[in-house]
């Protein structure tokens, strides 16, 4: 393998060296000159998109500059790879300037030939871009078959490797690129080069570099269909080109770059989507209170299991009838497998449900001003359609919710059902990115990091010119490389990072504190009453106060009975063991805990003597403002002394007591 890899390396550097030749202006060891467009950069790429020409024509001069910057960055990236390849291969005899085509032998020559002939070479000049030679060309033309190969003792293996590499190069050269005009929220636009492998995340990262935004997780690419009056958020994992290639040639559709808090709302406040019990109308207020730990555990429960949990969502929605402007009200339910409705005269049990739509072939959009356009009952509409449909059609489904909250729940629910865990992964990536950005900005000074990193990641480090719309400072490139480096560092080590935004430490922490909210309750054995107290320790509010409070009833209880006669020797381990045990599963109380305990110590009143007597406020039926007076079990939770601050010590006391009882 060693031999063949040398061959590959050599060929690799040869190929790339050729690229250098084409760029003409650059030495191997230096960065591409950031200033001024390369005079006559011949660039090796094929443009697979029909209207590149048009779009190029439409570009402003400065857009062109930015584009050129992109192109140069591409080349420089390739160069850096060359450098790397050079380093890796032990043969340093390679000097790009002196590489000659005749050096290629055998299959390498073949592949190179393919490259040259099959690929449209476009020349970029200062004034106007000439049309690409053959923009529609998607497939490589067959090269002239090589004449009898000048064959040495090359093993078949080496040959195969070469071919593979050649094909890979071929593939790479085939990569479709598209100039995308992105509308910023200040009504300006930016044009950037997007290649067909790039996800929305990559494009966002690219845009982060070009703009001075804070990189928070709400930034998104946003697709707008003015004609249909629908719009939606690009999911970060979506392939941008694929989506755009569904647009028609004369489309009015636009891509926006803006902040949408709906994008990851479920991860910021999962309780708004997952704990939306019926009958909890004043939900918002109580929901706001959920603390970070519980959110984390809720997210983990919903997204990290064997299968994700789709929020339970059901209710009456208005459905626009096909081809009409009338709306029919139906009861819809969301399930992981699709949206269902309850047929007339049927119940909402699973077996009676009729399938309304499944998500495989549709995207979800917000409908804009449907009230005006389609006489919708409200403006809170969402739309389901096949991504390829671009005109009004009976295959587009319009649904109308009663209020914004319901709308957001449905849209998010459908996204969860459709994308599953990917959504969560996207979010974590976005968080990591946001966290890094914030750390960067915190460091106030722009470090002069050596720009010549070998990083050259595929996630678009394309900016290297200062003139990109005049927004990129000189140090942009180094910033981004440092960021990138840090990013990757963070991804590998998962070390803690400072937080950004309202969520606090994001992804990494989620791994560190996965299951915090359910520490085990040690059951306490009593004479007629076994108390198991699920020590939901991290509940910040009221818990510290609430828990130890039931001391009074303790007094009224008979003393614990003598231990059961049996199993004395099988006792659980002595207390010292126990002291070691809890940290395994019980997380430390949240920092806010102590404060809460101090301030809010609302001991629940002692249980009334006859709890059975009056049962007016049934907890289960409505949600009365917490019926604290009724303590229904005769036994108190844990017989700790009153006034304990720490819930853990409570627990421990309880356990020790229990052990004491038994031995």
């Amino acid at each position: 393998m060693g031999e063949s890899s040398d061959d590959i390396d050599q060929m690799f550097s040869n190929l790339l060296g050729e690229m250098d030749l084409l760029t003409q202006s650059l030495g191997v060891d230096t960065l591409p000159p950031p200033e001024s467009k390369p005079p006559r950069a011949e660039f090796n790429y094929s443009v697979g998109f029909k209207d590149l020409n048009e779009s190029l024509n439409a570009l402003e001069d400065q857009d062109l500059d930015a584009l050129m910057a992109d192109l140069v960055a591409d080349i420089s990236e390739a160069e850096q790879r060359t450098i790397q390849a050079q380093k890796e291969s032990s043969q340093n005899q390679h000097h790009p300037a002196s590489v000659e085509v005749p050096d290629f032998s055998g299959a390498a020559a073949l592949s190179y030939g393919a490259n040259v002939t099959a690929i449209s070479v476009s020349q970029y000049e200062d004034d106007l871009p000439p049309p690409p030679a053959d923009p529609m060309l998607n497939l490589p033309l067959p090269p002239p078959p090589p004449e009898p190969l000048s064959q040495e003792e090359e093993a078949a293996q080496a040959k195969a490797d070469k071919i593979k590499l050649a094909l890979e190069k071929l593939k790479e050269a085939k990569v479709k690129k598209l100039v995308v005009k992105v509308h910023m929220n200040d009504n300006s636009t930016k044009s950037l080069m997007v290649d067909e492998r790039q996800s929305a995340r990559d494009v966002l990262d690219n845009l982060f570099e070009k703009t001075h935004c804070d990189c928070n997780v709400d930034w998104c690419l946003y697709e707008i269909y003015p004609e249909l009056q629908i719009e939606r958020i690009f999911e970060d994992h979506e392939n941008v080109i694929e989506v755009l290639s569904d647009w028609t040639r004369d489309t009015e559709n636009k891509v926006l770059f803006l902040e949408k808090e709906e994008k990851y709302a479920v991860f910021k406040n999962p309780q708004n989507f997952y704990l939306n019990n019926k009958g909890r109308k004043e939900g918002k207020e109580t929901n706001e209170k959920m603390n970070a730990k519980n959110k984390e555990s809720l997210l983990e429960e919903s997204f990290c299991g064997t299968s994700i949990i789709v929020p339970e969502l059901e209710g009456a929605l208005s459905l626009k009838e096909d081809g009409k402007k009338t709306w029919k009200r139906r009861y819809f339910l969301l399930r992981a497998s699709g949206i269902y409705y309850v047929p007339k005269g049927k119940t909402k049990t699973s077996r009676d449900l009729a399938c309304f739509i499944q998500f495989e072939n549709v995207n979800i959009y917000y409908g804009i001003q449907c009230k005006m356009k389609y006489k919708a009952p409200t403006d809170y509409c969402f739309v389901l359609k096949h991504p390829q449909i671009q005109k009004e059609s009976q295959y587009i489904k319009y649904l109308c919710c009663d209020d914004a909250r319901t709308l957001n729940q449905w849209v998010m629910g459908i996204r969860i059902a459709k994308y599953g865990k990917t959504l969560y992964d996207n979010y974590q990536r976005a968080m990591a990115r946001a966290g890094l950005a914030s750390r960067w900005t915190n460091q106030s000074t722009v470090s002069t990091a050596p720009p010549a990193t070998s990083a050259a990641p595929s996630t678009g480090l394309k900016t290297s010119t200062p003139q990109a719309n005049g927004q990129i400072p000189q140090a942009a490139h180094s910033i981004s490389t440092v960021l990138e480096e840090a990013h990757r560092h963070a991804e590998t080590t998962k070390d803690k990072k400072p937080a950004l935004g309202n969520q606090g430490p994001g992804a990494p922490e989620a791994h560190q504190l996965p299951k915090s909210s359910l520490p085990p309750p040690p059951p306490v054995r009593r004479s007629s009453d076994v108390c198991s107290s699920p020590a939901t320790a991290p509940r910040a509010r009221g818990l510290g106060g609430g828990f130890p409070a039931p001391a009074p009833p303790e007094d009224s209880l008979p003393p614990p009975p003598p231990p059961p006669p049996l199993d004395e020797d099988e006792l659980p381990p002595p207390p010292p063991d126990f002291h070691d045990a809890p940290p395994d599963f019980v997380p430390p109380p949240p920092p806010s805990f102590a404060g809460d305990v101090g301030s809010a110590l609302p001991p629940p009143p002692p249980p009334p003597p006859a709890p059975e007597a009056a049962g007016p406020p049934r907890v289960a039926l409505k949600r009365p403002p917490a019926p604290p007076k009724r303590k229904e079990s005769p036994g108190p939770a844990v017989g700790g002394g009153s006034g304990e601050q720490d819930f853990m010590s409570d627990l421990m006391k309880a356990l020790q007591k229990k052990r004491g009882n038994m031995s």
Partner: protein
Amino acid sequence: MAGMKTATGDYIDSSWELRVFVGEDDPEAESVTLRVTGESHIGGVLLKIVEEIKRKQDWSDHAIWWEQKRQWLLQTHWTLDKYGILADARLFFGPQHRPIILRLPNRRALRLRASFSQPLFQAVAAICRLLSIRHPEELSLLRAPEKKEKKKKEKEPEEELYDLTKVVLAGGVAPALFRGMPAHFSDSAQTEACYHMLSRPQPPPDPLLLQRLPRPSSLLDKTQLHSRWLDSSRCLMQQGIKAGDMLWLRFKYYSFFDLDPKTDPVRLTQLYEQARWDLLLEETDCTEEEMMVFAALQYHINKLSQSGEVGKTAGTDLGLDDLDAALNNLEVKLEGSASTDVLNNLTTIPELKDHLRIFRPRKLTLKGYRQHWVVFKETTLSYYKSQDEAPGDPIQQLNLKGCEVVPDVNVSGQKFCIKLLVPSPEGMSEIYLRCQDEKQYARWMAGCRLASKGRTMADSSYDSEVQAILAFLSLQRTGGGGSGNHPQGPDASAEGLNPYGLVAPRFQRKFKAKQLTPRILEAHQNVAQLSLSEAQLRFIQAWQSLPDFGISYVVVRFKGSKKDEILGIANNRLIRIDLAVGDVVKTWRFSNMRQWNVNWDIRQVAIEFDEHINVAFSCVSASCRIVHEYIGGYIFLSTRERARGEELDEDLFLQLTGGHEAF
């Protein structure tokens, strides 16, 4: 030693006679009489018994069972006094491990030796170790339902009973070795067969049997099962189980930790089987669409397991697919004649050309199918008036990428249609292709399916897709073509499979087999590429994402309420459900729970949640011990996340679920 007598025959020391029966608790059993004192240690007594019996045998597994106290005397260093044993104690000297018959999740019966002296939790752990199922804490044992089991016995006396009792003896207490097939299974052909039974999915059940098996018709029925769970903190002996009894082994807690197809073949399979039966017997309801997916997965799994492709992964990396194929192609060519047009061959894509009848439904048209010359190349379908016009412009050209492909097949009617819903910017266009026979249909259908996913017929999966379609058609021919209710043996081969064995009986009533088959076929196309374990995992995931998944129902009466209601216990919450209507009244999450108490005297469970919400109910359909264990068990399982070890915190589990043994 004792034995000196006074003149009247009394012993002068404080010794007395102790009678011990030898064997299991059979009063007719032989007995030995020993002379003991209160200070005699149990170990000494055991020794004496063995001496008395005067039989050479391995007595190491034997221990003394005290019948009146329903207790094992396992502490050998304890004295009789310490145990409180007097001369009237009925003691049995018998083996601690006794054979039981387990009904596994896959409904097969297996005889093995289980511990009758350890708490059930440990006994189950030992059983699971033997069966090589990880995470035994998720499983438990139920009593077999009495009457129904008998009925079944009468009808099928010839049930195959796998036997692992010998393995227990051979393997002893030592944990089995896990290397590939666990070592203890490779002992003999029988045990090997047993392992196959455990680790491979069973064929679909006979539809008639399926109809005969009891299914819950209401929520109330669903509560029945849960009254039969055994108590995990007490041993089998204490719970009145006798040697040779039938017990069910089931996954009790629906929280499956770290499910890994590689290390968990048995666990995955048994879980799949439990899920499958759960759906077939309508314990968990699902919609029609979901049932079709489940049926398709079952069909696929069955096919794979019968063809022996157990370890093989069917799905290969999509991206590499064509590259690899191309490489192979290229290599071959290069070896041969170098002068052929290599790359041309690479890019030729197989195409289909044929006369097909096409129907395009339009408004106000009465035209039916018309013969056309159809060319299918890459992902594009073009049709012409006749073959002669083929080089010219087609009547229509459709790119099938992203389209919906629906089979419309009736084998007995010799109707082989493909319905295509092709998206275009204007909406979806509908088109029907009618093929002449199965073979033609299979080829075109496979092409359409691949094209809808953006792949061409050059894709390596094309041939297998064709085969899958043919196989499925034959299924329809043999299985349900005619009367539709052919009883099939349990080991029907894939060829003669009856689709009724794949769906819940209510779909047997709703659909004819020939209606069912195409729908299953349609769902199958999305899963056809999965490997066996992937398909099983997918099945489990789809099962988990059903809204009703994993809820254990118990009839309870809430305090203050006059009517019975249902309490649903899921892995993260408690649900109060209206008994009559089945509506969810209220949900409480475990993460909000602070403590729960059980009053064993009045069989009442009292739970306190945050915000001073108190809930109390008495258990009607099952003992409150079962509810208590469920809650404690789920709390326990939720603590597993942190300590990712294999070893179990048994004490914690018993603390959380026990507590009542004192009574």
